[in-house]
């Protein structure tokens, strides 16, 4: 997030794209509700009639995967009606003219044709956003989990730049992180091309700095992303995988593919708190401690580093991950010795200036938001106040590309996957909570009433959903939340796993799989319950 | 049933309606506040059903359960009380065999209600039988009325 959660309430316009915020980020949802109560306008861009739609001033129900066309046509209107922020563009950006040119064909009418959103709504949205004084854009995986996810993000950045809506309080672009410490894991360098603090592995000076600090030779080659590792394993190139606290069998696209790949590995280590579906395929399983059993820090979606504290002992011989990692490093002949979690934290701070100003006593009561470079730096509630790191922000022209797998006569529906309120991710944690299971006991496929009628399906019936990759049995939930021609499945339920169906096509840059669009078909089946009755 | 709901919703949309007017309409059409109707209208209009229940349960005029075929309303206003409405009430309860907080007879023929005042205090005690107000009521007149209604069933 460029801004803080606390700033949301002062937005005068909320533009929510591809984010079912009230279910996936309930507490950020509360801040949005506060803003709405204070009179903010709300624009929702989502194919589903999510809860926020009820409160929206404008709802753009686009066809899945047409985000680029939609945002480009919104920007077309902004240019055409001269609602751009010229002084901001001149002072703080470059390449605007070429970018402006690229928008010319995206008239609202053209946008309507591709996205299905009426041209008037596109025009109205453009005006509302461009004229707002402190608008905030909020998005999550609905924007990024596409083969053109990077393009979508560029579009959003362009939109904010051309209207000068960045670098102010309550004004910015805010991807909402879906997991407690995605931000931190990325910050800490658990990505193949960056060391901690987004320092590129391919820049020699940077590499040397880390080699000196870590007293080890480092590889200059950027590594593989998670999806690439799975592909590589299936090809037989990757021989060993160490998975810590992840359940790719359920969370990655195309489960059959993932399982085949993992089985093909020579050696798989899984370190987790439960015997997950992935762990069942492991050669060695290591029992880890959960969040309540260790000390450390999490970094939330607003870049706030906060203290995690040990409350209880882990069960049996389960150990904190840091204990396991340092012991293993020792066995491999590398001395990794730390007195405490804070010891590790201060090493990270030495390697990454944005964290250098923090220590545990500073964040004892309330966390700090990076960048926080010195011991008296108050942290950074919103980014780009004084300008962009590269001096001038670049406009990136993008063109609409259809999603990789579009519905056809054989697979006529588009599948969207996502989360629901009570269950969480692959269910490893929440499905072991009795109360959650009682309230959200089973998976379902949300089907538009018209599609359901077409297929002769009643509410609550078991149906079969298939894609080119696999098929699952699942309960039908007929609801107007879904756009006609699309179905939605939450991916928490292993017995009706959405990722049996999804495609492994990824974005060429970010390597994000296209989990939000794939083609499926729907069939009614006679469920067991029904047979018993007969 | 659906037509009924549509009418209620139309009335709401056309006449600056609110929860109260919808409840009045539901009561009018169904004779009580049907849970099913409330839930369907609530989802149609995106108003939470708790809003309806909070108001419906506030007024004695709204009924949360289906009612009998004939409604006997006994006024319990001050003048009627002084002129013996309690005696009539007790006798009718006995006659209809209503126990505890029951208000509808087992044969669903009668529902007995009390009202604070129907505004006809000059002719108290007042009883309304199927909204027909009858003044200067006494026990024997009351029994005749009940028997008449039983006979016509």
């Amino acid at each position, binding site marked *: 997030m460029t801004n803080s959660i606390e700033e949301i309430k002062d937005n005068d316009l909320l533009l929510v794209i591809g984010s079912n915020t009230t279910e996936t980020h309930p507490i950020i949802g509360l801040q949005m509700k506060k803003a709405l109560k204070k009179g903010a306008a709300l624009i929702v861009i989502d194919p589903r009639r999510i809860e926020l739609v009820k409160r929206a001033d404008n709802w753009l129900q686009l066809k899945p995967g047409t985000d680029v066309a939609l945002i480009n046509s919104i920007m077309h209107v902004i240019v055409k009606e001269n609602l751009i922020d010229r002084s901001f563009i001149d002072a703080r950006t470059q390449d605007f003219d070429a970018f402006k040119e690229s928008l010319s064909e995206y008239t609202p009418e053209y946008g309507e044709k591709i996205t299905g959103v009426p041209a008037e709504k596109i025009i109205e949205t453009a005006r509302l956003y461009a004229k707002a004084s402190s608008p905030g854009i909020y998005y999550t995986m609905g924007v990024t989990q596409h083969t053109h996810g990077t393009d979508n993000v560029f579009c959003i950045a362009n939109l904010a730049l051309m209207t000068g809506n960045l670098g102010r309080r309550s004004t910015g672009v805010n991807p909402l992180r879906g997991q407690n410490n995605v931000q931190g894991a990325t910050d800490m360098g658990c990505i193949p091309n960056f060391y901690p603090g987004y320092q590129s592995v391919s820049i020699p000076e940077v590499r040397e700095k880390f080699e000196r600090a870590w007293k080890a030779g480092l590889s200059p080659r950027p590594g593989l992303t998670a999806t690439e590792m799975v592909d590589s394993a299936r090809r037989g190139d990757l021989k060993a995988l160490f998975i810590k606290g992840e359940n790719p069998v359920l969370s990655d696209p195309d489960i059959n593919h993932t399982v085949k790949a993992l089985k093909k590995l020579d050696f798989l280590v899984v370190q987790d708190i439960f015997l997950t579906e992935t762990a069942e395929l492991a050669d060695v399983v290591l029992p880890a401690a959960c969040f309540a059993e260790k000390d450390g820090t999490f970094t939330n979606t607003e870049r706030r580093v906060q203290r995690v504290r040990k409350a209880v002992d882990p069960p049996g011989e389960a150990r904190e991950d840091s204990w396991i990692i340092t012991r293993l490093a020792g066995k491999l002949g590398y001395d990794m010795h730390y007195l405490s979690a804070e010891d590790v934290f201060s090493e990270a701070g030495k390697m990454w200036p944005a964290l250098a100003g923090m220590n545990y006593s500073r964040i004892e009561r309330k966390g700090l938001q990076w960048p926080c470079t010195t011991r008296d730096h108050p942290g950074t509630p919103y980014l780009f106040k004084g300008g962009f790191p590269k001096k001038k922000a670049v406009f990136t022209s993008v063109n609409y590309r259809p999603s990789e797998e579009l519905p056809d006569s054989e697979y006529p529906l588009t599948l969207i996957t996502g989360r629901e309120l009570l269950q969480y991710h692959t269910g490893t944690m929440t499905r072991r909570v009795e109360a959650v299971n009682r309230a959200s006991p089973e998976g379902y496929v949300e089907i538009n009433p018209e599609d359901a009628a077409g297929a002769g399906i009643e509410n609550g019936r078991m149906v079969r959903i298939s894609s080119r990759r696999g098929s699952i049995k699942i309960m039908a939930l007929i609801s107007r939340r879904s756009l006609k021609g699309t179905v939605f499945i939450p991916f928490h339920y292993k017995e009706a796993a959405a990722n049996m169906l999804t495609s492994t096509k990824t974005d060429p840059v970010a390597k994000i799989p296209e989990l939000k669009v794939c083609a499926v078909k729907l069939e009614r089946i006679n469920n067991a319950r029904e047979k018993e009755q007969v | 049933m659906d037509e009924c709901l549509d009418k209620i919703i139309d009335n709401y949309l056309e006449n600056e309606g609110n929860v109260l007017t919808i409840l009045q309409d539901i009561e009018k059409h169904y004779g009580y506040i049907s849970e099913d109707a409330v839930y369907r209208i609530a989802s149609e209009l995106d108003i939470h059903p708790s809003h309806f229940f909070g108001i419906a349960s506030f007024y004695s005029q709204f009924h949360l359960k289906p009612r009998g075929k004939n409604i006997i309303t006994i006024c319990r206003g001050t003048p009627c009380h002084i002129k013996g409405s309690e005696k009539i009430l*007790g006798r009718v309860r006995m006659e209809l065999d209503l126990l505890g907080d029951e208000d509808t007879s087992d044969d669903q023929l009668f529902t007995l209600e009390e009202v604070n005042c129907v505004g006809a205090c000059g002719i108290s005690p007042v009883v309304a039988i199927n909204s027909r107000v009858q003044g200067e009521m006494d026990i024997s007149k009351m029994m005749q009325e009940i028997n008449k209604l039983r006979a016509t069933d």
Partner: protein
Amino acid sequence: MDDKKAVVKVCAGTGSVSAGGGEVLRAFENLSRSSGIKTGFNNRCMTQKVGCRGFCSRDVLVDVILKGEKTTYEGIKPDMVPRIFEEHIIHGRPIREWMAGDEHKRFHSGQTKVVLSHCGEIDPEELDAYAAAGGYGSARKAYTLMNPEEIIEEIKRSNLRGRGGAGFPAGHKWEFARKTRSDKKYVVCNGNESDPGAFADRCIMEGDPHSIIEGMMICARAIGADKGYIYVRDSYALAVQRLRRALKQCYEQGLLGKNIFGSGQDLDIRLYPAPGAFISGEATALLKVIEGKRAMPVPRMHRTAEKGLWNRPTIVNNAETLANVPGIMSRGAEWFAGLGTETSGGTKVFSMTGKVNNTGLVEIPLGTTLREVIYDIGGGISNGRNFKAVQLGGPTGGCIPESFLDHQIDYESLALAGTIMGSGGMVVFDQHTCMVDTSKFFLEITQAESCGKCTPCRIGIRRMYEILDRITKGKGRLWDIELLEELGAHIRTTSLCGFGMTAPNPVLSTIRHFRDEYAVHIKDKKCPAMVCKDLLSFSCIPENCTGCGMCKMVCPADAVRGIRKKPHKIDQQLCIKCGSCFDACKFGAIHIQ
């Protein structure tokens, strides 16, 4: 009135309609029509429905005006109509024995009709009738000749005070709303009439709906409102119907809507029929209901005149208050102020019921004494019994004993006597009324009608009711009177809204004036008025009993034993103390102890 025509006026208030007013009217209409064919008499006779005439104990009341001379009949039933028609209308011979007698004259002559002046005189369903009586002249004046400040000044000088209970000066209220800046302002007519037993507002709404609309128009002009609501309980079916019709006529005539009287000001008035609940009459609760919420009062951090409906300046005035406004504007503030006392101008309508000879609506100038009302207008206590107390202000008002009968009726002296003006309920009790039972009766209503929001009202009133209940059942404790006094004062002091602040009044006032009666209930387990049935026992006096069996027949509990022509006995175990045997016995053989 054209004296060539015979005019028949049939009272058409709720009381009258339930007494057969509709049938009486139809009988007149039918006769008029049929006789018209025969005699060509039709043109001379017109029948009108008129609003309540206040004298409800003598319904159905019929006026026959022949050649300008008005004759009033009382207690008319449909089968009596042909004779009136034949003898009076056709032959000009009034029927003496059916004419309203002295009581009727007395009932009306003691009153000063201001708010009720149109009720019973003009057809409430016709705008023309109202206009013919000078209606909407005041509104025209307010919109075309006066500026808002002048209107407010006029109302202030008239000493008009809110007739809904608390008696806040109306002009001041309007001034607050006038001075508060807002994009929108509202005027709301409170026609909830919470008080069971009071029906003044209903009669005005039924009998003179246009006067309320005109009052609202003038108020809207004064404060700058362009939206009004008439809140009326939907069980007042006739009032709802008449108001709806009146509003429709106003829109048709351009009296409401855009650009009223060419003043450039708009006014839209909506009728808001809502279910009746006692608490809805409280202004903040009433506004919540219009907002579509539960009728729960909110703390008055701001005046409603400054922040009311949807947080906009809002005037909430009682129907009677608003109906007074046109008269003030046309006849002048001095005239109105002159009618009342120094602190409160004008008249007040009371709904007099209970054990008086003449019950009905009574309009008197403020400052009249209670004795005048009860004895002169009301004709004294019925059945020749003795006056015991009079309850004013409805279930949250207080009871006043005989010693206060010569006090003036105005806001201040009523407060001194421990009661309130309320919405004008007046119930007269005779010596056969038990004051403990009466208090319990009122608290039974108020404990159920509490909105449940604040602690003292929700739980406290219920507890007072329970204490009263045990006293009337002979289970009172020695300290119960003091406990009631403490709790009553506590509820009065700590409650959130006016409802809770006044709800203990019936108990506190009766303890104040009739403390001994409570003490007898508690210490001697006796009810001196023979009302609290748990403290009574019924027995048969063998010397008087003829064994006629009447008591046995009426006893709902089969508690009477005995064979014909032999003295009967009452089984104390079975007796439910309903009193039916006592009423049925013609020989005075039932003894109550």
